[in-house]
């Protein structure tokens, strides 16, 4: 007895009947893939074996009316469908009233023949295996030990199944558990193998979603456009849709996208004058050539002129002030000199005639009390 190996399979049996089948199938598959020359024939045999196990599990050893066993056969894998139909006909014709056990033995014979090789041996192995399954108590939640023994037998049955390949003698010598482990460990093609017995969607019926007849309620499709639309509502709806797909940013760039949309970041492409919309309409000459502004009040020569020209040069190079601010700045000096008129005329330097218009409060120098 090799309890360790069999215990491994207990979950298959214990979890559910379906799983049980799956587990056995899985194991057979794994054993099988050992053989490099896994022929289609063997594949068929194993599928068939599986089917038999399935049928066996559903029907107890009690006699079953034939019409009840039919839906079970429908559950066979697809590739066998045609063949099984043929078989079914044969069986239905000749052996309709035989008990299930007898039918199974017949079926086993067929399998054995289809596999070839030592027909009698295969057949007896198969039947032996089925017997084990049949004896398995329905309520398998208890009695682990018992089921493990059966499974051990089951696996020995499997071994003989492989015995058709010539290597079998060597294989039996190798520790079986070791081999299973190897299969488990290095199963690169595992995914492919699982595909074979994944439950197929045999009931897949393509539905063309657009093929149906329309309701026929709407008659004219060039509808007039004078139904009310709600701009604010639509805008808010659009916004709520956008927030529904805005999720925590996944990297710094997504974070920057969100910041850009919220207006917290410079917009790409980077533009130094971003947001300075007022300045967009101002020609650069107005920033640079400021002399015309002092021409109307400033003396043509002398220290005041000299000073004001320097102010103009300074301002023309200042990128931080708007044109309006520059003008205000100049006007401040104009006003300042205007207030100093008395002093200026006393020294005989010059007299400023007029005050500028619309001087902003901020730029008005405090007029000293006289």
């Amino acid at each position: 007895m090799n309890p360790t190996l069999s215990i491994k399979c207990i979950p298959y049996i214990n979890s559910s009947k379906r799983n049980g089948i799956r587990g056995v199938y899985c194991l057979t598959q794994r054993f099988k893939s050992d053989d490099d020359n896994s022929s289609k024939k063997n594949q068929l045999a194993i599928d068939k074996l599986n089917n038999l196990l399935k049928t066996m599990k559903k029907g107890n050893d009690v006699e079953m009316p034939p019409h009840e066993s039919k839906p079970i056969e429908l559950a066979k894998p697809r590739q066998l469908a045609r063949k099984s139909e043929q078989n079914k006909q044969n069986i239905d014709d000749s052996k309709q009233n035989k008990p299930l056990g007898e039918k199974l033995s017949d079926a086993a014979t067929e399998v054995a023949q289809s596999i070839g090789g030592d027909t009698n041996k295969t057949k007896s192995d198969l039947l032996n295996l089925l017997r084990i399954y049949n004896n398995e108590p329905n309520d398998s939640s208890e009695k682990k030990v018992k089921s493990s023994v059966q499974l051990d037998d089951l696996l020995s049955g499997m071994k003989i199944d492989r015995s058709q390949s010539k290597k079998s003698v060597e294989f039996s010598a190798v520790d079986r558990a070791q081999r299973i482990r190897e299969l488990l460990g290095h199963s690169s093609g595992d995914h492919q193998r699982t595909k074979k017995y994944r439950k197929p969607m045999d009931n897949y019926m393509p539905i063309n979603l657009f093929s149906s007849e329309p309701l026929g309620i709407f008659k004219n499709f060039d509808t007039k456009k004078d139904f009310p639309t709600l701009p604010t509502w639509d805008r808010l709806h659009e916004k709520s849709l956008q927030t529904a797909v805005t999720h925590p940013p996944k990297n710094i760039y997504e974070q920057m996208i969100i910041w850009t949309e919220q207006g917290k970041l410079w917009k790409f492409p980077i533009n130094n004058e971003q947001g300075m919309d007022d300045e967009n309409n101002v020609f650069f000459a107005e920033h640079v050539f400021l002399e015309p502004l002092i021409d109307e009040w400033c003396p043509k020569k002398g220290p005041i002129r000299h000073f004001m020209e320097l102010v103009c040069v300074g301002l023309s190079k200042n990128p931080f002030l708007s044109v309006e601010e520059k003008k205000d700045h100049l006007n401040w000096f104009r006003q300042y000199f205007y207030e100093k008129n008395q002093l200026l005329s006393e020294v005989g330097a010059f007299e400023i005639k007029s005050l500028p218009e619309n001087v902003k409060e901020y730029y008005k120098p405090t007029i000293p009390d006289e």
Partner: protein
Amino acid sequence: MLNNYRTAFLRKSNETIQLFRLSSNTLEKSSSNGIKIDIPKYINRSSTDILKAISSTIQRDPTAAHFKYHDDPYLIPVSNFQKRAYALSQESGRKAAHWILNQHPELFNHKVAFPPIEKFCPNVVYDESSDLDENELKIIIEKAIVSDAIAVYNLLKKKDIEISSDTQQSLLELVCFYNNQDDLEEDWIEERWYTQANKNREEHRNTWKSNGFAMTLFSTIKSPNSYHYSIIIQGMAKYNQFEEAYNLYKEAKEKGFILSINAYNSAIKTAIYVKEGADHKWLHIQEILTQMNDSGVPMNLSTLNSILNVLTTMTSNSESKKYALKTIAEAKQFDIEPCLASYYYLLQIFCSDRKNKSTILVDILNLIEEKSLSIKDLADTNFFTAAMENCRYHLQNLDVALRVHSILLKANNYNLIGDSYRESVYYRHFFAILCQNESVEFLMKYYYDLVPHIYIPEPSITELIVKTLNVAAAVELYPKIWSDILMFDQADREPIIIELINGMAQNLFPSFEQSVKEKLGLLSGTIYDAIEERKETGKIKMPWTGTMLGNLINICLFGDNINKATEIIVKLHKNQNEIIGIPDSLTIATFLDYCIEKNYFNELLVSKIFRK
């Protein structure tokens, strides 16, 4: 003056000459080489396009936590609770900063940027003293701040400032859309990501504020026109006040108004509550559609979705599937493409029958697989979760599930997952299907990719994963899964522990390498200690069973962890009253054989006490 003109003219002529030279050059070249230079048209890019392009080159690092968490081992969350807590605490810090800014705007007088950034400015407070006019109200409506809009409207009324009917209408739209209350600010992305789960529960509850500002505003309008009726009907239907909405709809019909498309859609939706029985509901829909046709109002996508939504409530009627397809065909005549929300409803309509399974999901996937998806309806975000659930319970098919997953990962489709709750439900179903598939390697491929940074399995899913490991005898993965169980704080879940211990004990093969054996032995000791510790603190209430301890002893012996095995044996002996059942006699025999074989006489003596 003249000078100016001259220079300008000279410059102009110079340019033309140069241009001419350039063009003649290119002409010659192109003719000599026979290659025509095709200068592409200037493409207008938005300010975020370049960021999007860079961002699309960054792939997810499965070993790293989400970007929002600090990249510090101590601050990387490893459970769902931590994920939520860390993300929300960070955001609540930001909220606190906002609060201070709004509470003490006088402290923030410095200009942080020019041009000024509006988001960094404190909120404006409106009261009696503020100088208001209609423009101010318009700006607030544009910003969609409901409470401010209502306050300003009331102030304007008090000051007897006339408000144009257009502004009044927009205000009504705003308050109806948000049901008289402020929406969650768009800044709080995390809060939205984590709290929408609660919103779903309100899905069919009437939350409309029946004596809110919207109703007051509506009643002050002396002769409401079709716009006002449309707005109020849409608002009521949005917040599930269906009866009132239907009454207003009938009132508007009597007055002969033509309403907005969405108002008709809302009226269709009222069928869910106003009418009972499939036949009445369908008649109701047909009636409203006929009225739309008579008024010359076309269908839109939301009409289609509203009808399908009503149909989901009458799936017991066998005709509902036929109606759904007919509706889609009708919409097709208006060139309306169904969106994810429509497909979500279709899934509900077609797959309500558990016996007669429908594979409509496959047809839907065929349709959306090639398309780039974008959000068109708020219910769109339900689709992927529903599709995965359908794969798990309805189709029970891994292939379809994998297809759904691949579509989700395409382009920007992941944004349509909804929120954290829906995301974890989606992955719960996904992992359940993966576990049903027997290949452990396949499961672990996704496990390593998604756990723990995207998804942390719920206890039930952890149990499924452990089961899958057991079935496949993937012994090498036990240490990994145990450390994950500890990390996710699920070591106190009894079903998981039992499943894990039993599974390990069943998968002891003598042919393992010594190192694996030792690992298992150590692991079993660790598990025993962890459970003991949790039992002491009261986290685990389940009593030890003899079989469990027996299994642990088996694993310990298997891995030459004789100390732990002895400890457990002593425990078995001392606490006989607390332990349910006895271990298998085979276990004890193995223990004794092991001790004799390895000459562990002290241990043997300990166990002798036990045997008498």
